[in-house]
């Protein structure tokens, strides 16, 4: 009997050692979705997660995927102001040959912007239950969420459809205002812009009513919301709105001086930015980063000559010799031709390297939107001239007053955008918005590298197809919804 008792003791001791919660485990580097929205801190963490998501490298092997700045490079390389002489990452963008439904450039922006939308939709869906500590906190969080959503739809509709004007009733992109797992149809471009303007108006409304100082350069504040609205209004041809939004946006921001402009675009505090991404070494994406691809001063893809980016000779030649933007450029003979290196992006100077901060909005862009909107409204050319003069005053050593008027003035403003915003992702967007021809002739572009020397206005090459994965999985979309 003694033995039996030993056995029973052992069996009892070990067999029932598994307690009820033995099989309940949770991850430690992820958090249960339901936990996130139980606090305002959680909702703020979602916003910061979005800010970070816009600059992470989702797949380490893809050095041309590092968030929204990779789309800025895409847009610029599709234009005529940057010259490539080697094959490498972004070659297909330079060749306007990355738009088909199966290609990765088609799916990445789609996925990223819609992930942002899903995250902000989750914040907005919990708006009533999140225990905000104050109205200003509520306004800051919901205002940012709404602006992010508008901004994401604005970017999407500009990649996957032609511009607003003339395409209002063309297919847009699916619009979601709450979290879902069922895909929607494309709707129209007008639907998308309706959503964008409604979200921006609401965001501006609640942030105006509950103003609060900005926490960090990466946050969307009232100025940034106005700035995004200015971009949207310009796209929609709503010149008066564009003018006032741009003017409101840049209130309180001085223009960058010549010294500011030459400071290398790598430390946000060294110049005047309205919105930007501050980056440190830990959060930098290394070789897959904007500086790696665009900055010729550090040993990334561009700076190590693996795939250098030059400023187009013709654009260089159009700038005044005393212009700081031209003075930052330097001739380089690569053995076959003379090219110009633009040292606008200079992260060696600051020592930031691959961790250079990235600009998303600056007052000069707002000034140029203002000037363009005024010029297009007609009859107020002198106001627009003055704005250009204001900009020249901080770019050129001895600026000559702008005297041109009418179309010539408008052309001067648009050319000024190319000078000022080179490398910041605007040229391709502008070509699409302005419905103009892409003309790479008369410069140092090589057809063997760029494939197309000229592309007619509103060519299908500008229009990205809807990713095939969306067409395949979305019950409300089929091949007939695909772009050409």
């Amino acid at each position, binding site marked *: 009997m003694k*033995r039996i008792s*030993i*056995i029973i003791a*052992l*069996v009892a001791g*070990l*067999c029932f*050692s*598994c307690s009820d919660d*033995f*099989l*309940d*485990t*949770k*991850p*430690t*580097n*992820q*958090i*249960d*979705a339901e936990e*996130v929205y139980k606090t305002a801190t*959680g909702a*703020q*963490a*979602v*916003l*910061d*997660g*979005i*800010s*970070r*998501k816009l600059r992470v490298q989702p797949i380490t092997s893809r050095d041309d995927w590092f968030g929204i700045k990779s789309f800025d490079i895409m847009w610029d390389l599709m234009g005529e102001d940057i010259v490539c002489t080697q*094959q490498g990452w972004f070659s297909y963008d330079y060749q306007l040959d990355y738009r088909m439904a199966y290609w990765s450039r088609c799916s990445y922006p*789609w*996925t990223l912007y*819609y*992930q942002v*939308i*899903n*995250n902000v939709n989750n914040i907005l869906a919990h708006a009533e239950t999140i225990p905000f500590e104050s109205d200003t906190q509520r306004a800051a969080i919901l205002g940012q969420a709404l602006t992010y959503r508008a901004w994401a739809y604005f970017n999407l509709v500009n990649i996957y459809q032609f511009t607003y004007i003339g395409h209002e009733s063309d297919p847009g*992109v699916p619009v979601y205002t709450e*979290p879902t*797992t069922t*895909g929607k149809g494309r709707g129209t471009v007008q639907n998308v812009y309706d959503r964008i303007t409604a979200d921006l108006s609401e965001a501006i409304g609640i942030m105006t009513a509950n103003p609060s100082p900005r926490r*960090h350069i990466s946050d969307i504040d009232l100025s940034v919301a106005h700035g995004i609205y200015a971009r949207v209004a310009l796209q929609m041809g709503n010149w008066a709105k564009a003018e006032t939004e741009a003017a409101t946006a840049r209130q309180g921001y001085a223009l960058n001086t010549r010294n500011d402009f030459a400071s290398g675009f790598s430390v946000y505090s060294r110049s005047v930015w309205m919105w930007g991404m501050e*980056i*440190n*070494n*830990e*959060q930098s994406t290394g*070789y897959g980063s904007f500086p790696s691809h665009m900055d010729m001063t550090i*040993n990334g893809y561009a700076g190590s*000559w693996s795939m250098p980016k030059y400023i187009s000779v013709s654009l260089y030649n159009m700038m005044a010799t005393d212009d700081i933007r031209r003075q930052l450029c330097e001739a380089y003979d690569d053995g076959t031709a003379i090219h110009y290196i633009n040292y606008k992006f200079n992260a060696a100077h600051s020592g930031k390297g*691959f961790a250079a901060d990235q600009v998303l909005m600056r007052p000069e862009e707002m000034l140029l939107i203002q000037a363009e909107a005024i010029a297009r409204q007609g009859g107020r050319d002198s106001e627009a001239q003055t704005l250009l003069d204001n900009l020249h005053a901080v770019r050129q050593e001895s600026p000559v007053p702008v005297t041109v008027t009418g179309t010539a003035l408008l052309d001067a403003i648009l050319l000024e955008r190319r000078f000022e915003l080179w490398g910041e992702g605007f040229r391709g967007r502008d070509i699409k918005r302005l419905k103009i021809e892409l003309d790479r002739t008369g410069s140092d572009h090589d057809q063997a590298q760029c494939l197309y020397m000229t592309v007619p206005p509103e060519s299908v090459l500008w229009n990205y197809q809807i990713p095939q994965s*969306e067409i*395949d*999985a*979305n*019950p409300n979309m089929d091949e007939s919804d695909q772009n050409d």
Partner: protein
Amino acid sequence: MKKILILFVLVALSIHLTQGQSVRVTGKVTSKDDGSVLPGVTISIKGTALGVMSESDGSYALDVPAGSNTLVFSFVGFKTQEVAIDGRKVIDVVLETDVLLIDEVMVVAYGTTRKDAFTGSASSVKIDKLSEIQTSNVTKALDGLSSGIQVTSGSGQPGTTTAVRIRGIGSIYASTSPLYVVDGFPFDGDLNSIPQNDIASLTVLKDASATALYGSRAANGVIVITTKKGKQNENRLSFNAIVGFNVRGIPEYERVNVPQYYELQWENLRNLFTEYYGMNNADAAESSSYYLISQLGNYNAYNVPDAEVVRTDGKINPDAKLLWTDNWFNEMHRMGIRRDYTLSASGGKDKSTYFISGNYLKDEGIVKASDYTRFTLRLNADTQAKEWLKLGINSSVSTSDQNYPVSAGTAYVNSFMWSRIIAPIYPVYLYDLNGVLQRDDNGNKMYDYGNEFGRSRSFGALVNPLGTIMLDKNLFKKDNIQSKGFVEISFLKDFRLTVNLNADYEGNTNLEYLNPEFGDGEIYKGYCRRTSSRRITISANELLTWNKTIKSHSFDFLAGHESYDLKYNYLSAARSGFPFPGQYELDAAAVIEGASSFEDNFTMESYFSRLNYNYNDRYYLSLSARTDGSSRFSKESRWGRFWSAGASWRVSQEPFMSGLTWLNDLKLKASYGSQGNDNLGTYYAYLGLYDLGYNNMNYPGVFASRLPTPDLLWEKNVTLNAGVEFTLLDRLTVNFEVYNRRSVDLLFPVPLSPSTGYNSYDANVGAMKNTGFDLDASFVILNKGQFKWTTDLNLSHYKNEITKMPKDQDQIINGSKKWMVGHSVYDYYIQKYAGVDPENGKAIWYTTDTDGSITTTENYSYADRFYTGSSSIPDLQGGLTNSFRFGDFDFSFLITFGLGGRMLDGSYQELMGSTPGYAMHKDMLKRWTPTNTHTDVPILDYDVNSNETSDRWLTSMSFLNMRSLNIGYNFPNKWISALHVSDARLSLLVTNLHLFSARKGLDPQQSFNGTTDDSYSPLRTTSVNFSMNF
């Protein structure tokens, strides 16, 4: 055993009492081999259940009832012998070793079984053959030693594990690896920590009957490893030393040499000028001679002016002399030395046994700065503390250092990629324009980074991996402790309760250091990442067994409970900016580059049971069932049931077969059952989750990452196995099995509209099947006097077919494959090459016209993908071992082979491009030229599409590998007995002697999916092995 003995004695007594007339027979059993006495031999009376075992001096005594006239002597590893009594009272028997049935007792789930009683499918790998393969990791030794196993050749880096598959492909998205069970417990540790010398048995469990007891983790088969134990009254001290060298096992592809390379690049340029720039031939030739060197980054390897290296006739200048002849491969690689020493002692006395071993391995790879050093110690001991109580421990400690430089993929520091792809014209060291080797202030050769003396190397600008390899570090330090203990209690005559406890610990620290001077670390001024992780598994099981024989009915019942608790901790931090050379600790640098940590927990609780029944050693039935609860799944769905049923019939035991003397054994068997595959790649397969760590500067951030999937479950296998085993003429043993393995509830990421923010959610929606056969045969071809020749052959074949795809997604393209119902997971779906247009030399591909007809195109972007009708699954694969013994000499070799299947030879494809600066395969010499129009190699004209992916690169996977060779000499007893040595042996071992494949350089076993990588070649190891037993 003693209990059984008592039982037998009791039964014998009772019979004695009832029948009252029996004869006592005594005798002694010895071995024919060396005349030694054999304890533990079972001596039974034919036709009855009576029997005894021989004592430690080999003697036995048995009362034989009247009417019985035959004694049966059986013992593991020896041929069973039947002896007629014919009135004798003393019968001495000499038993002969049995090569065919040497593995009569086999290790199965939660115990052992007699091979003839086993209804399932399992292969016991021959341990002596396993230990002839020189590797630190047992997975790399398995190839060719068992049917039903497919193994990739794996990296040549010492201390790495390779991938193993059992009976086809079990899953598409979840794991396809078998479960490893070491000394009774599922093992998630490092298999490198178990030296081959410590392994006593390795069994591959293949069908449901064999594996169902491992439930939700067994769907991909189970590999059961047991370590050595001491034997009663067999005290032994052994020393084993293997010393040898490693060289490259797979040769390099055949590439063109320097003059050929310049000539080909000249032609490349000439055709560019005529085709795209419209030059006439003479002008184009002149321009090509002029521009050739500058196109290659101003690298002129000859002592003649640039424009005269290749003359306008396209031929290399006959007066030109080479300025340098550096060989990248030789500079970056070496011959590695391998040393492997084991000292062990084992034995047992009275009621205890022990096994102690220590092993030291130092294995140098062929890449400079690649090696593996390991120490292991093991102690296995058990004791019969009381008549009813047995206790034991089984523990091992190992620690290893591994230098493992990057040696796969496209990184420039991968020396195999670099030395394969860089054009032969580029030197390793820096030479000036006159070819004078440059030395630094200390007199050391300077490395060529491709940017001095006006040069700009077209391949790997600003990189010299040799400099990087020597200065960078990638060091892994691992510590493993495996500790097990058991208590076994016998009670109520036929019952036994065993309680097992197990703790596996694995500690890892990793140093990744990029030097500040050269390569990727330059921009960081030196970069260092330190990673440390700890994995500990605590598991326990309680097994209750009941054995009972009632007349001709034998029952063997098992019931058990098991808990399993895995905890994994990870911590990693990185800094950059290292001011002092040779400093690798984080404190030496200031800039934080990252820090992260996490913990994973995985728990399981299981109940299981098995009943084995046999009638008269003729009919066998085995039933098993297991219920698993797994923390991987939601509370509602985490419990699952798995089961199996198996039966076998030993036809040869039937009375009607007894006349057939040529047939020693014949057994038919079949089994059916289900198992699970819970390894879906995550421990939390059901929660809706946000990722942490999306921090925005100093602000913590989260981002939605996963939709909740509360219904997700393990994948299931339903396997049918049927087989026949027979032995003929005491010489030929064959085991042949067919199987149908259906995998259902396969995990698929079911696509969602990406515009919802998620690309997919996980669901159990797919199905697939693997059907095939396994054949194992052993044949004693010759056994005469001193000479013996045996052959072992195993053959495997399987077919894989997808039988169900997710709804609304009837096809998925995955790289070079397309998944569709009716096709295998590895059916190639790629562009089809239509050869070369004989008119202009351009590559052409097939395309589907708008009207559906098939035409050809020169434009690769119009080329369509097709099923090519081939896959990377071999039709047949196997291993053939021949062993010879002649007196004191023995010789054996293993050949592994595969037939059918195709590789997509991407390495060859890379070498068939036109890009300047990249090396070229010799086949480029067969390119199209106006005088060589009938070829399938296109014109060289800078066309980057000419070598695009297509079925042009599909190459036969068939191969024949001289896998291992062993020549041994056993020192005769008369020489060594004076030294108190019981045996001593000297042998030569060669692993990976030679590979025959369709293309020199191609390793057809490098992957299951048929793709290639420029990765660490498997090693050829040649060693001398000396072993001694005292």
